[in-house]
């Protein structure tokens, strides 16, 4: 059986297993086992990919398979992976596995919860392995829609509002996206009157006319950009993340937002390099704003999840910024940043969820001195914070440096000034991270009730340790991952550089 | 002679139609409708479509009108005058109807129909019956059956809908 098909099949089977489970124990065990298998498969995929490369396979995409799906429109279900998608699949597998672990104590309608969660995951995995714009879009929708239920039912705070807002904004984005995809499709005939196609690889071999690119590049970039929290379409993020249940925040910020970045790189930039080159500056300005603005926005927030949501805006802005630089180093940085931010923010949201369960508040004004009572979570939070502000030895640093160095390779003043502006975010990030750490963990204990709370239990520890391990692993030895990704960037960068 | 009768019938159709839709007493409207149907049956007779004319008389005049009158009896005060439509509503409707009629008549008159052929119509009852139940070319057995199913279905439907809700 094909490994990529299994990646979709296992979640589907897991959903089936959950739906026939009776007790809560069975439900969460089947979810955990299913996602555990998924994690193993993702790991296997990484090694299989490396082995294939070692055997001298130099194709852009590996494990390519294709099935005819809807013949008259030439829609295929074609799948395949390269280094970028493999690494993002691995990220997804880690995040969903830890997400299931953090949801161990979901008691309310747990069957439905896990089913929605895993349906969502299926969408994400499908998205990353799709080579066909149509199936990519299909999986995109599959990933976005369960979000509504997950936030609306199991969320907290103004959950209906948040769920509605998030879903509507993402649906709006996908409308724009669909338009862009169709635009690509109708212009994808190799010769006038030839067969039109949704296949990314086939389209990438063509030169789409410039006037077509000018129309559809912004559509696609904005469509994916909304998911990647592009200013000014980011406002679903603070509300959505703060209302979502822990595992959903983790998945959403950790993985779904990466689909935006991935889409921008793989579809918008790769297929329409001309417009990317020509209109990139608009989006560079927007993403630079995202980066700095998100960071400034985070400084004064009071809710832990809001802080993290704004921080995500800033970090994901950096991803898009790096992608727009159309430089190999920074594109590499962008992918690294996606992975790094995925892990980091998953850790953050997991920790916030755990802390919230204990303190029943997320308002940092009422917290303080938690390091004393929950040292494990405290230290983990601090590590997540340090990773977020780009401490060497943790993953954030590697990604950011790749982005900055790459972005600075452009010799014109505009790109350099944008880079310097974006660089300044490392200081602002430090400010808000330290503010949170200081008010949340350090200082005297503000509330006597906090003296009674207990430190993490086994599944929480497992979550945190897996994520920290991944973060530190990337941070300490980045070279293999960087090499892993950078080879796959070659075709994209080549296409972009041919335009110049 | 034929023409005179024809014109009388036509004017009857038009007058009774107008009266049907304007009369303010509902029972009278039903009766005007009956007259209108009778006039059109007369028209069919004149065109030598005896079977059709007969069906028109029995089904329409005999069946439908009776049904309508029953329902009037069941639901309305017969003596009451109907509320007249508002000026705005009726004028707008009149404009729409008139416009539609003008458009249609205009296109009818501007269209040159193919030459009238002189074939003879064999609209004897026997021929109609044979063709209606024939499954060969120009046979209408399938629509006939479909209609019969439709009739059955509407019968069942009418009963179900009009049945008193037993739960209440």
């Amino acid at each position: 059986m094909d490994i990529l098909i299994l990646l979709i099949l296992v979640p589907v089977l897991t959903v089936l297993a959950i739906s026939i489970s009776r007790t809560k124990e069975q439900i969460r065990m089947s979810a955990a086992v299913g996602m555990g298998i998924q994690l193993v498969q993702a790991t296997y995929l990484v090694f299989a990919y490396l082995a294939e490369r070692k055997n001298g396979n130099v194709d852009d995409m590996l494990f390519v398979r294709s099935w005819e799906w809807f013949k008259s429109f030439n829609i295929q279900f074609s799948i395949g992976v390269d280094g970028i998608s493999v690494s993002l699949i691995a990220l997804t597998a880690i995040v969903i596995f830890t997400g299931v672990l953090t949801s161990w104590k979901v008691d309310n309608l747990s069957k439905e919860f896990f089913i929605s969660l895993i349906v969502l995951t299926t969408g994400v995995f499908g998205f990353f392995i799709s080579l066909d714009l149509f199936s990519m879009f299909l999986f995109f929708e599959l990933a976005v829609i369960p979000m509504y239920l997950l936030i609306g039912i199991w969320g907290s705070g103004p959950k209906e509002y948040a769920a509605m807002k998030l879903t509507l904004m993402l649906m709006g984005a996908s409308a724009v996206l669909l338009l862009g995809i169709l635009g690509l499709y109708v212009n994808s005939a190799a010769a006038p009157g030839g067969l039109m196609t949704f296949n990314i690889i086939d389209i990438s071999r063509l030169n789409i006319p410039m006037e077509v690119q000018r129309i559809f590049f912004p559509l696609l970039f904005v469509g994916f950009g909304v998911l990647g929290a592009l200013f000014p379409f980011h406002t679903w993020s603070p509300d959505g993340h703060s209302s979502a249940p822990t595992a959903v925040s983790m998945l959403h910020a950790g993985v779904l937002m990466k689909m935006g970045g991935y889409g921008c790189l793989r579809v918008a930039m790769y297929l329409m390099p001309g417009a990317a080159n020509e209109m990139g500056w608009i989006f560079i300005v927007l993403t630079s704003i995202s980066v700095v603005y998100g960071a400034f926005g985070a400084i004064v927030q009071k809710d832990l999840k809001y802080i993290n949501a704004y921080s995500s805006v800033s970090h994901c802005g950096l991803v898009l910024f790096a992608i727009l630089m159309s430089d190999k180093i920074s594109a590499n940085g962008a992918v690294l940043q996606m992975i790094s931010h995925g892990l980091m923010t998953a850790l953050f949201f997991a920790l916030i969820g755990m802390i919230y369960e204990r303190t029943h508040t997320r308002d940092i004004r009422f917290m303080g001195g938690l390091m004393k009572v929950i040292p494990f979570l405290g230290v983990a939070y601090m590590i997540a914070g340090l990773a977020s502000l780009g401490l060497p030895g943790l993953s954030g640093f590697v990604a950011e440096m790749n982005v900055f160095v790459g972005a600075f390779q452009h010799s014109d003043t505009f790109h350099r000034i944008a880079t310097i502006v974006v660089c300044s975010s490392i200081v602002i990030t430090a400010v808000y991270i330290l503010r949170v750490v200081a008010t949340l963990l350090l200082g005297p204990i503000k509330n006597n009730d906090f003296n009674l709370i207990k430190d993490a239990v086994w599944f929480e520890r497992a979550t945190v340790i897996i994520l920290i391990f991944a973060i530190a692993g990337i941070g300490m030895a980045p070279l293999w991952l960087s090499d892993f990704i950078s080879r796959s960037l070659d075709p994209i960068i080549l296409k972009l550089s041919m335009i110049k | 002679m034929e023409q005179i009768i024809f014109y009388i019938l036509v004017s009857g159709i038009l007058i009774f139609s107008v009266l049907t839709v304007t009369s303010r007493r509902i029972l009278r409207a039903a009766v005007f409708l009956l007259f209108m149907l009778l006039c059109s049956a007369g028209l069919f007779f004149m065109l030598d479509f005896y079977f059709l004319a007969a069906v028109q008389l029995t089904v329409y005049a005999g069946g439908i009108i009776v049904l309508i009158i029953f329902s009037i009896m069941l639901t309305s005060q017969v003596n009451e005058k109907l509320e007249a439509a508002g000026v705005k509503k009726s004028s707008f409707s009149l404009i729409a109807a008139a416009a539609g009629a003008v458009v249609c008549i205009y296109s009818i008159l501007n269209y040159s129909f193919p030459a009238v052929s002189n074939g003879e119509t064999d609209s004897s009852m026997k021929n109609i019956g044979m063709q209606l139940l024939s499954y060969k070319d120009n046979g209408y057995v399938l629509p006939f059956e479909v209609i019969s199913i439709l009739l059955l279905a509407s019968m069942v439907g009418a009963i179900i809908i009009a049945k008193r809700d037993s739960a209440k």
Partner: protein
Amino acid sequence: MENFGYIVIVPFILLISFILIGLAGGRFKPSLSGIAGTFSVFVTTVISYITAFSYFSGAGLVNGVYQKIIPYNTEWLRFTDKLVINMGILLDPISVMMLVVISTVSLMVHIYSLGYMKGDSGYSRYFSFLSLFTFSMIGLVISTNIFETYIFWELVGVSSYLLIGHYYQKPSAVAASKKAFVVTRFADLGFLIGILILSNITGTFDYSILTDPNGPAIAQGSTIAFMGLSVMTWALILVFMGCAGKSAMFPLHIWLPDAMEGPTPVSALIHAATMVVAGVYLVARLFPLYALSAPAALHFIGYVGAFTSLFAAIIACTQTDIKRVLAFSTISQIGLMMLALGVSDYGGEKGLGYMSSMFHLFNHAMFKALLFLCAGSVIHAVHSNEMNGMGGLRKFMPVTHITFLVACLAIAGIPPFSGFFSKDEILVAAFEKDFVLFIVSMIIAGLTAFYMFRLYFSIFWNKNNEYKDSPHESPSSMAVPLMFLAFASLITGFIPFSKLVTADGAGFETHIHWGIAVPAVVIALAGILTAMALYKKESGLPQRITASLGSLYRLIYKKFYIDEIYLFITKKIIFNGISAPVAWFDRKVVDNTMNGIAAVTNFISVKIKSFQSGQLQQYAYVMVSGMIIIILFALYLWNK
């Protein structure tokens, strides 16, 4: 040439020690962590000494020039073929010297902490972070490329943050650690941009290419101009911004006095001897680039150093918290080192400033660590930082008293203590290059002597205070490091530094310039005597003088209100002026736009829904008219 590969052990043992102590944390007896940490640093020290000995005794010497040796270098992250971050080890005179400094001071501080931190709840944590710090600091000095330096630079910053915030339940410590991190982080932004520009012009991160005096990097610098200065100069000034942050140069010095909230041994290690001189070290590391490619940047550094030094010395005269006095003294001394670098040239005897700067760095590390440890000892005994609450301690704490005196004499530059030699070289270098800077450094010499002895007399002489529980001498684990460092302060002045550590690696002869040394010593003595007159006996004289200075005194005592200005900038401008409006803008404008779109949609749908009135005849009417319109349209098309 000897193989120095064994040095790889040093960072690894420290890293392992950090991770093990950190993970094992509270599970074992705390003293075990202390011993483990101390042991790893001890191994480090031994290896450093062996390295230094073999390097300076000829292993590093080729044709009378000390070579750069790279015993180990491995690829860590690759950007392009040329832009590669390596993790490696670079040995040259300054890095070997720094190895010795760091390992010595760190070992002393570890031993000292065994006693000083006894009973502290965060004992294991403390030692784990100390290991992390030592690891990062050693990594910093032995870096082979500027990016590796940046990596360890950040790690040093974070370990400093963690250690300053050691007493994390104390709000002031938390605030101080935050401030230290943010200020240095801000400076590092400059550093990072500097690296980006530098790597962009030269196409490399590697020190051996960057600082090769005949290499391509130096030649490339001055070609492109930007705002009156060459791009290289800008890059180097930005790099210096990072140095200024770490080394607490004006105006980025504000974090260092606050950093004294950390445990005193930490102040000795990080904020006196090692981390704060990283800036000086980095300038020295890039010195060929500065001297040959961007002399303007070097001048700038010299003046910044001089100004900071004078500025800090003046403030030091007024502070009453003993650790703060020492902190300002540190700033002042580092300024002096920067000044020395600023007046130096590249090559041979012209590199006197460079050599004297390194020499002073070395000596300063010893005596300043000693001063801090003594101060720690005093604080340990008195449980207070305030100078006013002390006095007459010489009777209770003889060891501390003597060692403190040695350190004071060393920093004041009285022969034959170490400070005299290095300060003399600095003065000579300044005299030869720039008379203004020479005068400034003379004044600083006098001020230094004054405030150090003000401190000394106030603590150990002056009035005899009544102490609640009578102060006592520290335990031997604390006393031994004091004595060792005092001994070091006595003898390190006699190390022939000019033969060992020079800008171009080739040694030269120096001798004491009595024409400058004598006036300098006289000025220092004058400072000491003034302090003695004012503070040896309890008298009202200091109060009268301060009263007569009035608002000027207040201005100095408040550190020229720099902190308040920063507070204004951060609280008022960044928090209330930028962040709060941004957050407001986001919620009210951006978000409301999105909500507004939703509201408009909703509004339209409310309007549209009245079409769906349930009125059958309306529907029929619309249908009929629609049909007519369609027919008309079709007719129109038909007839056309």
